[in-house]
């Protein structure tokens, strides 16, 4: 299929209709920025956005997830025995996800869905989600997706790619899941050759609008130890305040903590996002901490994304160039400079 056209009105109406039978996440304005929110009648989706402040990772990997529940009530025969918290994973869709963020889901998927272990929550939600991307006509100046295997109209990780043509969306289904989703939305109109050509030109032009680039070609050559011992880490790390901003906003950071919480006699085992920037992340019970200093933690974040991941999986860096950390690191630590330093070392 080449592409179907929907007027934005039709699209909005059809999404709202579909939202009655399944969960649909759409970008919506929240204070000064956008975030993905569940579509319902009380809210207005806003597709006129650059990217959401928080990445959409929480749609598949929520910041806090109840894993198990249990009772400590001794009169119960099941006291102290963990049971999976009941949940279902009905089909859901995220509409308007940017290509970089969809690419990020693929990058993280190799961690959570591997030959030996499958993370049951990630896997079930990821498989139940349809990713309807929205190409970027006007990428930001901090975007560098094209250097890291993506692009403003990249189809990686997407089931459908939408192209904003002003008053209409051009929708291209990429996978079976995508075709099914489009069928639910409605037939739209078959796009003419001319429209397709115009769209292709626009996508081409968007590529040219990516103004940031980072080098990655030599990251493989150096050994982990060589890069680990490189002289530039102290300098990069100096301003860092070891907050969770970069890792929590990043679409490819997946680290988590597991905690037990009890109220009266009922308890939950919960997993929460965690960050390698926090000292507690690696603190042993004995008090020993292999990453006690901030420079070690800063190095871990960049080494993980640009070296360890590269070596482990051989499918590129664990960064999709969304630019969130570049824009929102409170002290302006810019990963683009770290790419330069690591690749150039």
């Amino acid at each position, binding site marked *: 299929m080449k592409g179907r056209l929907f007027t934005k009105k039709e699209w909005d109406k059809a999404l709202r209709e579909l939202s009655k039978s399944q969960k649909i996440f759409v970008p919506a304005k929240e204070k000064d920025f956008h975030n993905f929110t569940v579509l319902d009648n009380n809210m207005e989706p806003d597709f006129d956005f650059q990217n959401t402040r928080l990445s959409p990772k929480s749609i598949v990997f929520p*910041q806090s997830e109840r894993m198990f529940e249990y009772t400590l009530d001794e009169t119960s025969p099941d006291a102290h025995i963990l049971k999976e918290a009941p949940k279902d994973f009905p089909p859901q869709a995220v509409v308007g996800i940017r290509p970089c963020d969809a690419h990020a889901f693929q990058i993280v998927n190799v961690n959570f869905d591997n030959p030996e272990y499958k993370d049951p929550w990630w896997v079930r939600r990821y498989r139940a989600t349809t990713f309807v991307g929205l190409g970027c006509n006007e990428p930001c100046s901090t975007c560098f997706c094209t250097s890291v295997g993506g692009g403003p109209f990249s189809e990686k990780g997407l089931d459908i790619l939408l192209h904003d043509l002003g008053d209409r969306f051009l929708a291209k289904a990429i996978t079976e899941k995508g075709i099914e989703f489009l069928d639910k939305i409605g037939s739209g109109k078959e796009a003419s050759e001319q429209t397709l050509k115009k769209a292709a030109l626009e996508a081409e032009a968007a590529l040219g609008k990516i103004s940031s680039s980072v080098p990655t070609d030599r990251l493989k050559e150096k050994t982990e130890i060589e890069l680990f011992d490189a002289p530039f880490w102290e300098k990069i790390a100096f301003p860092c305040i070891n907050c969770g901003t970069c890792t929590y906003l990043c679409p490819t950071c997946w680290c988590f903590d597991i905690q037990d919480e009890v109220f009266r006699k009922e308890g939950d085992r919960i997993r929460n996002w965690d960050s390698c920037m926090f000292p507690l992340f690696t603190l042993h019970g004995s008090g020993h901490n292999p990453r006690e200093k901030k420079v070690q933690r800063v190095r871990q974040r960049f080494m993980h994304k640009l070296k360890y991941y590269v070596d482990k999986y051989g499918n590129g860096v664990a960064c999709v160039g969304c630019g969130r950390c570049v824009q929102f690191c409170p002290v302006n630590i810019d990963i683009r400079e770290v790419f330069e330093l690591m690749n150039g070392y």
Partner: protein
Amino acid sequence: MLEYTPKIREIARGLLEKGTVDVFIGYRKGSVPMMNEPVLVTDPAQTDVLHWDSHCGLNLCNYLTKRTDRIGIVANGCNSRNIVTHIIENQVKREQLYIVGIPCTGMIDHRAVKRAVNGKEIKEVQENKDTFLVIGKDFEEKFAKKDFLQDNCSVCRHRNPVEYDEMVAEPVEEQEAEDVFADVKTIEKMSPSEKQDFFTQLISSCIRCYACRNVCPLCYCPTCFVDESQPQWVGKSIDPVDTMTFHLLRAFHCAGRCTDCGACERVCPVAIPVRQFTKKLNKDTLELFQWEAGLTLEQRPALDVYRVDDYNDFIL
């Protein structure tokens, strides 16, 4: 304030060349608009990276904690008050420091600027004394700085450093803010349940990244109460009760120490006005103990001393 830049570089170069200090802490121009990056300079030849403008809204005192070398540092009004607080709390010694005083005319509120251009991408912001020019892909707009001051700067009453070794320029005139605590008073008038709703709403989007805590020079405890596991005071999920506990306790830990520098509010990735917590305590310490943090090295902080005439109406 751009004009301070050459002077800062010159002073820093001199200090490093003469060996008066081992390191110099300042800002360098950031890689994205309205952002500057704290930088540590050790080589006199590198002092030309130093930079100052109306986007230096972090608190460099944060980088002094437990350092043992001799340090040159730039400090405007609020930062200098935090340095004083740091000295009083034994986090650094006065003798270690060479404070380069910055008479401050306030920081620009980056969120307000983005709002003013309707969220369109800003490529560059050029500052020119009282105005600044915002440049985007297909627009240029000029604004008056006084209309875009950070909230804390617009009510600041200590723009000039209180402690310094050298000033980069003549002191600026202090503001006569009409009512520093107008916002706090509005909240004080609310009923308890309105207050609860107000604060619950305020922090509803908090992701507990702790940028607000970590950017604050006051938060230097080796183990923060939110990180303790025995006993565990606060849960770690984004349960609203735990998030509220974090914010309330953090604010209390800053009582009588906060200088309202605004760094916490500036850095929050989800734009939570966290100063609404600390400001109430600033108001209380001022009214109940006539105390403002960091104005002098000579006096112990309000919550550090007991006086028989201290406010004690809370004792039943």
